[in-house]
């Protein structure tokens, strides 16, 4: 199958080209690669410094993993507790089985509110369910309020990172986007001026649009509280000024108790942006008379999560707190940027999460988008063993492929079946070794190296040499010397 390299990145896993194809535009664009690498260097260096100063970092990671595992093990009970407490505090809890269900609920609420416009806090979950295009098609004006999200929305760009989603857009591009869509003629490309432009652009929206949509970083089961972590204050605006608030949260976002935030808030900002704490974190509980929105809805979204929950190795994927440390550390992401992953979730977490959310029907190339170096595992604040999950998913992809008839004569599967045959029978293996030695002798140079091979082997020798086979195997040597020793 051939895929045209799209001009515009496709982040819908059901139609996105496979990773190696989607990676080409960035690989061919040295400036973009430099931008991505620069951003990664900045965040990584800040993170490393702050992790260094934290004497109990590993203990925090272990506690974080343990709390998240405990939640997942008892997810049903904690969700019910959250629902009960949130409802008691004046919130309305909805349940959505999939993206379509969640989108429908949002639209129904907006219709009941007669809302023609909504303001939004940056949220991965609403990106996952592709809420914005759906609402726009239904005639609702959607206004993103996070600076990076404004850049993407006004510039018709796609996010390439889960924490700094517009890192692939440079200041002169931002200037152009803002000048064009905000109608400002003499705008400089100074980040300070660009930020001020965004502030002015949104100020009136915050004060007049009566409905807001957010995601959630954490849901607190014991109190029914919802926490949102941010930097700019746009979140606080959306959480405070409108009349109605709608929060879309994955079912895995629950924490047992308020106090568990003492672990999560210590690891999240350090991992995400290399700060000791992000500028603003807000927590609210249902509705509070006189303070903030007086109508509050939470939509608990499954969308494939309960299936991940049921699998032993893969369950840890749901511990994720979306800090992005894994992509910042990933040598593959650093070269390809985020769009290559064909999903709103890029990087190592995207490589394991996306195919699972697609129930392994799409995005099968993603588990291979890794060198398995383990850098992601090392930095993950909730200790998700991403390489382990990648390998498990690769096995599933292989099993799927093997069952396809057209793969029967695929050279790789043919080779693997041959190898399986040879490696499981000692006598065949020894015979093959002897034959290989004979055969390769023709191609081995005087220096003991093979410089070029015909056919498929050429793919290897085109770029590197191969050492010739030794005159005798260890097994043969041992058999001989054991006899001599006696």
């Amino acid at each position, binding site marked *: 199958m051939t895929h045209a390299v799209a001009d515009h990145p496709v982040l819908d896993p059901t139609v996105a080209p496979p990773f190696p194809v989607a990676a080409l535009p960035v690989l061919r664009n040295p400036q973009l690669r430099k931008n991505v690498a620069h951003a990664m260097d900045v965040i990584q260096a800040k993170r490393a410094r702050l992790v260094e100063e934290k004497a109990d970092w590993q*203990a925090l990671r272990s506690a974080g993993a343990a709390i998240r595992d*405990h939640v997942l*093990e008892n997810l049903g009970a904690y969700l019910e507790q959250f629902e009960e407490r949130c409802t008691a505090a004046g919130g309305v809890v909805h349940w959505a089985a999939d993206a379509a269900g969640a989108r429908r609920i949002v639209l129904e609420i907006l219709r009941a509110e007669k809302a023609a416009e909504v303001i939004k806090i940056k949220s991965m979950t609403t990106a996952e369910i592709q809420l914005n295009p759906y609402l726009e098609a239904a005639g609702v004006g959607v206004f993103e309020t996070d600076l990076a999200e404004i850049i993407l929305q006004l510039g018709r760009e796609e996010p390439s990172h889960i924490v700094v989603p517009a890192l692939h857009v440079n200041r002169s591009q931002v200037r152009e986007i803002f000048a064009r869509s905000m109608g400002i003629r003499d705008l400089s490309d100074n980040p*300070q001026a660009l930020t001020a432009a965004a502030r002015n652009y949104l100020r009136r929206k915050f004060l007049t649009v009566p409905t807001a949509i957010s995601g959630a970083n954490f849901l607190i089961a014991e109190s029914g509280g919802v926490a949102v972590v941010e930097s*700019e204050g746009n979140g606080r605006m959306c959480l405070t000024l409108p009349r109605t608030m709608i929060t879309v949260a994955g079912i895995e976002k629950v924490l047992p108790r308020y106090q568990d935030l*003492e672990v999560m808030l210590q690891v999240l900002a350090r991992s995400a942006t290399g700060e000791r704490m992000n500028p603003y974190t807000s*927590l609210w509980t249902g509705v509070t008379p006189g303070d903030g929105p007086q109508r509050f809805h939470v939509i608990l979204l499954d969308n494939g999560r309960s299936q991940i*929950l049921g699998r032993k190795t893969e369950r840890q994927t749901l511990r994720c707190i979306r800090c992005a440390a894994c992509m910042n550390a990933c040598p593959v992401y650093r070269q390809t940027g985020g769009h290559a992953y064909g999903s709103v979730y890029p990087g190592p977490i995207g490589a394991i999460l996306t195919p699972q959310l697609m129930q392994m029907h799409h995005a099968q190339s993603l588990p291979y988008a890794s060198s398995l170096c383990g850098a992601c595992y090392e930095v993950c604040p909730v200790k998700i063993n991403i390489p382990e999950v990648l390998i498990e998913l690769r096995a599933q992809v292989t099993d799927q492929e093997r069952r396809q008839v057209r793969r029967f004569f695929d050279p790789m599967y043919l080779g693997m079946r041959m190898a399986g045959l040879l490696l499981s029978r000692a006598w065949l293996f020894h015979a093959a070794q002897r034959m290989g030695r004979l055969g390769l002798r023709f191609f081995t140079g005087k220096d003991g190296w093979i410089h070029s091979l015909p056919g498929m082997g050429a793919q290897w020798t085109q770029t590197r040499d191969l050492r010739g086979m030794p005159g005798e195997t260890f097994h043969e040597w041992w058999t001989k010397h054991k006899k001599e020793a006696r």
Partner: protein
Amino acid sequence: MNAAASPRQQALERIRAATRNPAASVEPAGSYASLRRDYIGHGALPAESRIALMLERLREYDAEVTECPPEALPATIAAQLLASGRHAFVAPAGLPQEWLAPQFAWKVDRDLPAAEIEQAEGVVTTCFCAIADSGTIVLHHSASEGRRVLSLLPDWHLCILRASQVVETLPEYFSLCKQPPRLVTWISGPSATADIEMTRIKGVHGPRFLHVILVRDPVADPTSNLQPDQAR
């Protein structure tokens, strides 16, 4: 699975089947209590260094800090308001009357509409506590801390922090909370973004200026009155 079941029932059934855990109540067999928490609960800094650390963090965030003894607080507030060059302020309903220096225009928040709060040039509030390790100010939005909108819209936030309210670590703050609070805002420096080429820019939507008056009241260890089991 019952096709007529509500999405809620279906979701819970799927989850229970996936976890093979039908428990309807949380914390089966004390498993929550036995979660390992080997991280640092209580900090080890003496009071003076703890406060110095808090001030250092605030300055790193470009927050301005002024110190004063308790009896000089009203005068210090007035001086800072004057120095800010601003005139129109809002105040939470529970702010002590003697802090509202009469030479300025005050609006006290008794359900002020947002548009009026937006007109104010600054706001004065107290706080619940502060965490030195990360330089964080915590608001629980009591009567003197104000509604959330109050410390959000004005461009200049003057926060009154008593030395005795400064704890060292985040877990120390959590052990101060007997009940989960209903509303919380954690503030660590003024609003900021690094979305354009990773350049940190101060002041996007929240207040662009954070100013703290540290009141030098006598400092006991703020968590020393805790039971040992709470002090983890």
